């Protein structure tokens, strides 16, 4: 997995609550058997009209947001399905960090498996970042995972929380299957004990 340490980039404002996984990547794009190539269909139904032409008003279609690396959004981002195609599409577009007041659990978890950092901040701080993001390419937002901070170009700094294990994996770009396999002895021991206790499983 790709490491995430620091990021300084353009942030795009999406001031909507409940942005769901069907909006992030509609189901017609789930028919792929690959993880890559979904970026062009990120937010497909908001981004393109019925003829497949770009809708100029949609934030990521605006010239100043084409290189967006950070998304600032409303409450409950990523609600809906477990489809990992949602973070795959976000990553493939070039976005490495999503900042919102809250996230849906499965989506939040899926981000970390794909080198994306989801950051939950209080509404007031998200509001400030939203304003900052509205300045487009004139304002770069900085994210430092090691220090656990988000900074605006005006020098405002917000601290965020992140699970220590998830942070470690993201900083080092670790593959968690490999990490778990190092604990195979514990799994073997558990399995033997569980099979005795619950042989019907």
């Amino acid at each position, binding site marked *: 997995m790709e490491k995430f340490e620091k990021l300084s980039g353009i942030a795009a404002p999406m001031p909507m609550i409940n942005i769901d996984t069907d909006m992030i990547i509609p189901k017609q794009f789930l028919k792929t058997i690959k993880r890559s190539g979904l970026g062009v269909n990120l937010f497909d139904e908001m981004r393109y009209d019925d003829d497949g032409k770009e809708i100029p008003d949609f934030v990521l279609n605006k010239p100043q947001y084409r290189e967006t690396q950070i998304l600032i959004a409303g409450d409950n981002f990523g609600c809906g399905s477990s489809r990992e195609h949602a973070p795959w599409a976000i990553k493939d577009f070039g976005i490495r960090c999503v900042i919102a007041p809250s996230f849906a659990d499965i989506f939040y978890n899926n981000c970390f498996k794909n080198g994306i950092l989801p950051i939950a901040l209080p509404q007031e701080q998200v509001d400030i970042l939203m304003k900052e993001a509205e300045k487009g390419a004139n304002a770069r937002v900085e994210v430092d995972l090691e220090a656990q901070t988000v900074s605006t170009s005006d020098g405002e700094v917000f601290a965020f929380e992140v699970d220590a294990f998830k942070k470690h994996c993201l900083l080092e770009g670790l593959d968690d*299957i490999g990490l778990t396999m190092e604990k195979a002895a514990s799994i073997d021991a558990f399995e033997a004990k569980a099979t005795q206790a619950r042989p*019907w499983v």
Partner: protein
Amino acid sequence: MSPKTLYDKIWDAHVAHEADDGTCLLYIDRHLVHEVTSPQAFEGLRMTNRTVRAPDKTIAVPDHNVPTTLDRANAATMTEDSRIQVEALDKNAKDFGIHYYPVSDVRQGIVHIVGPEQGWTLPGMTVVCGDSHTATHGAFGALAHGIGTSEVEHVLATQTLIQRKGKNMKVEITGKLRPGVTAKDITLSVIGVTGTAGGTGYVIEYCGEAIRDLSMEGRMTVCNMAIEGGARAGLIAPDEKTFEYCMGRPHAPKGAQWEAALAWWKTLYSDDDAHWDKVVTLKGEDIAPVVTWGTSPEDVLPITANVPSASDFTGGKVDAAQRSLDYMGLTPGTPLSEVEIDTVFIGSCTNGRIEDLRAAAAILKGKKVKDGIRAMIVPGSGLVRAQAEEEGLADIFKEAGFEWRLAGCSMCLAMNPDQLSPGERCAATSNRNFEGRQGRGGRTHLMSPAMAAAAAITGKLTDVREMM
């Protein structure tokens, strides 16, 4: 010993390893797999020369994009990319030696219907699937939740999941339900109260008289939508109804093993003085038959209410409500019972079981679908379909003017050809009314099977109580 919730008990019985920081490896008893979220996971195994650690605990079935038309054996009814996904699952199931119900098998159906039906889902188990509605299996008192594809790969390779424990939330529905009110109305009403993020970070246990009174199928409907309330998992403590449902199922234990299982299952309940991080209580008698009006499952109102206006809300919900109203093409103040529909979809893992079909048939018997309405019933599995035919329900549906389909997810997420056109308004028994969920521009109103059947007859959202 300190008192525990049901969630605590199942969790404690499955921790295979705990790190100092509280990160756990949770052992997984059942892993359900379908064609859409698994190909990349199997590809990952191949690329790293890993195998499936416990193929006997892994069950696969194609459901999301299989056609449900009677001619589906004809490969031409499937789009190229759908066919590739189903073929990939065929191959992966064979190569890795996991249990498999191919499209041609009468037991094929929606993964969350097949699991319980075949006795794979049992009380006290940990169950995962690359699908958020895995919460359904919580109806058995199993800790069941959806996972992403990376986690599918992780479970395939290690039979464990990296997890931190969630918080405990109790949702109690006291007393009795009124006539015409169903499990679907309970689960939608709970989301109406908690909001779609109210359960984030929690495992919900549903309890109270109205929950105990539900059949196993009704309980599955309730738990199915725990995820719409933000909770990864919903639970209901197992009881005699649960045990009776499980007994004799193909993969349920038998003989002495059954007795041993039963003895453990009977310990699976929340202790009286267990700690809850959050409690929500609803009175059963206060719950009405409901429908959704917007594009979030929390946009729930009794069928007797009017379409709200954006100014009824506060905060970020004002804009969201306005966006929903525009998308749904609804005018504030209109009685919901005057909203005309184009299509009726009865099916999905929320409401595609035999009791759901019986409830719909009870309303439809001897009646006709209103002229011009497209109406389809998609049973949740081949066995549900067969039983509905045996009970004569299929004839009632066909005589009423419904299409009678083969099993699959169908118009719940419209990955197969069953889709809404832009602006088409649908009364649906599925679980999500998101923009574009049932087809680009399609408008979805969620409700119970009986309510959907009533809507098919009148051509409008309808209070089923007027037909009972």
